[in-house]
């Protein structure tokens, strides 16, 4: 490849930079695992990785390939089960939750269930999995996904996982825990957040070589813009070195 880094590597670095040290993160398969692992090696050595099927506080020496595989509780402080983890999240112990999906709307609601009518789907997607639970009970959720008009849409076909639902107050009205909700969207074009008042998605920063216009063009809904939109620094040599030599030596995400 021509660039100095791959699009996956960029997403991993952007996601990893968001996580604070000394907090807990509910980790799904794929990019979030690498992001958490990178954060641990960089600025967040005390980031506690929590995996759906029971692993807490694992030392991520090898890249887990499944949310329940043995690497998710490698040298962990606790290996329990899905109820303990989901209830720990329901009790308010988990700060960050990672999410993905085929579609997202301006309130951060996600669809990973079906394209078209769910009863006669054009495409049957994998379903909620733990997504809905993460989106319901983690304090701050981070969505990671490619950025285009097919994915960033005005109306998603199915609300699998709750974002801010229909807007301000909607989560609380539905009975979801107070103070929870979408926090960031890390995409192939930039990093987005949410407006405090309207709970609508807002562009915060763009990726190297990406213009604000390009982000707007590739978003299927009216996107809010931060007053000063910053530029995300590309992956540093240190980040890339750790990623390629330590976290993903087999280059699954190169």
């Amino acid at each position, binding site marked *: 490849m021509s660039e100095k880094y791959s699009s996956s590597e960029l997403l991993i670095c952007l996601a990893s930079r968001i996580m604070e040290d000394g907090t807990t993160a509910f980790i799904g398969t794929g990019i979030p695992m690498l992001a958490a692992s990178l954060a641990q090696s960089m600025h967040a050595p005390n980031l506690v990785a929590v995996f759906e099927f029971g692993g807490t506080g694992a030392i991520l020496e090898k890249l887990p390939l499944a*949310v*329940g*595989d043995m690497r998710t509780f490698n040298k962990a402080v606790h290996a329990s089960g899905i109820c303990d983890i989901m209830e720990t999240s329901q009790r308010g112990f988990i700060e960050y939750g990672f999410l993905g999906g085929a579609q997202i709307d301006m309130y951060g609601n996600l669809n990973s269930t079906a394209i078209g009518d769910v009863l006669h789907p054009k495409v*049957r997607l994998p*379903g909620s999995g733990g997504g809905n639970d993460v989106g319901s009970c983690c304090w701050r959720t981070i969505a990671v996904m490619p950025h285009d008009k097919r994915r960033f849409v005005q109306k998603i076909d199915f609300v*699998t996982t709750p974002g801010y639902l229909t807007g301000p107050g909607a989560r609380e009205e539905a009975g979801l825990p107070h103070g929870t909700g979408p926090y960031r969207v890390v995409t192939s074009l930039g990093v987005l957040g949410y407006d405090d008042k309207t709970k609508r998605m807002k562009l915060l920063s763009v990726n190297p070589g990406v213009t604000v216009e390009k982000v707007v063009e590739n978003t299927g809904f009216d996107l809010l813009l931060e007053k000063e939109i910053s530029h995300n620094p590309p992956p540093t040599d240190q980040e890339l070195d750790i990623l390629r030599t330590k976290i993903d030596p087999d280059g699954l995400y190169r």
Partner: protein
Amino acid sequence: MPTKTIAISYEGEGSMIQRPDPEGFRQWNRKKNKRLVDKLMTDEEAIERFVKSGDYLGFELYGTVRCPMTLTRALVRSGKTDFRVAGQGVHELDMLLATDRIREIDFTYIGLEVYGVDSNVRRAVESGKVKNVVEWSNAAITWRFKAAAMGVPFIPAKSMLGTDTLRRSAAKVIECPFTGEKVCLIPALVLDVGFIHVSRADKHGNSQIDGISGFAFEMSRACKRLVVSAEEIIETDEIRAHPDRTIIPYYLVDSVVHAPYGSWPGEMAGYYERDEEHYKMYVEKQATAEGMAGYVQEWIFDLPNHKALLEKVGMDHLRGLNIRGDWL
């Protein structure tokens, strides 16, 4: 006292594929054998005796992780069909979907994790071969087992609220009579037959699991009939020496199948890693109906039993997956 009421503020429109029936479950459990009897049998015999077409089935853990794949292959071979399943699944449900054995799904996640969308579930659901799909989250389906395990008709939760997942589920929302907050009531789910692969079991069914226990504790207590497969069969004295390691007591278990590498091509913590080479090959095959049909023919129908499978895979190849030095 005057009868007060609380509001049912929402009811999911999904159908209840398996109705909660705590009283019926209590009657069933009362009749279960409480004696220590030898339940060792082959995978074929276990399926023959304890599964019938139309049953509601569940598997633990899932797909590529401590999954009862040996039992799954025997189930497919048996020709029994028209199953209803709790669809937290990956590789195991693929085998049943590809052979058209599933009619209804309480659906949480069916996919290939890092390898993406599952073509089998796409073909089976988009074609309408699966007649009924009801949506749940992973926590919700596990809490359904937990409610059944507790002997109650439901437990409350703070998941699924406000979403289409809730709309397409069979859950209900009420206002908590203590706090006034809205809570989602998750109905109990009792399986006709559960399949769990464990690290070690004795011939009576007392079982131990190394590492995370997934939802084995809850699901094992939410089955009318439970078939356990184990990497190792150990003496009951070993169970009694460490009773705090038992996660499934014998009286829950109907059948014990000795299945070393019983999770292959999935992993087994403490024993072996998953067969990534085989799994990558599988991911390519499953992309097309033809490829998948060929895979099922080669890896299930053309093999009479687990022993034949181990021979086909080859002990040298299997030993190459071992993470435990003294393992086979």
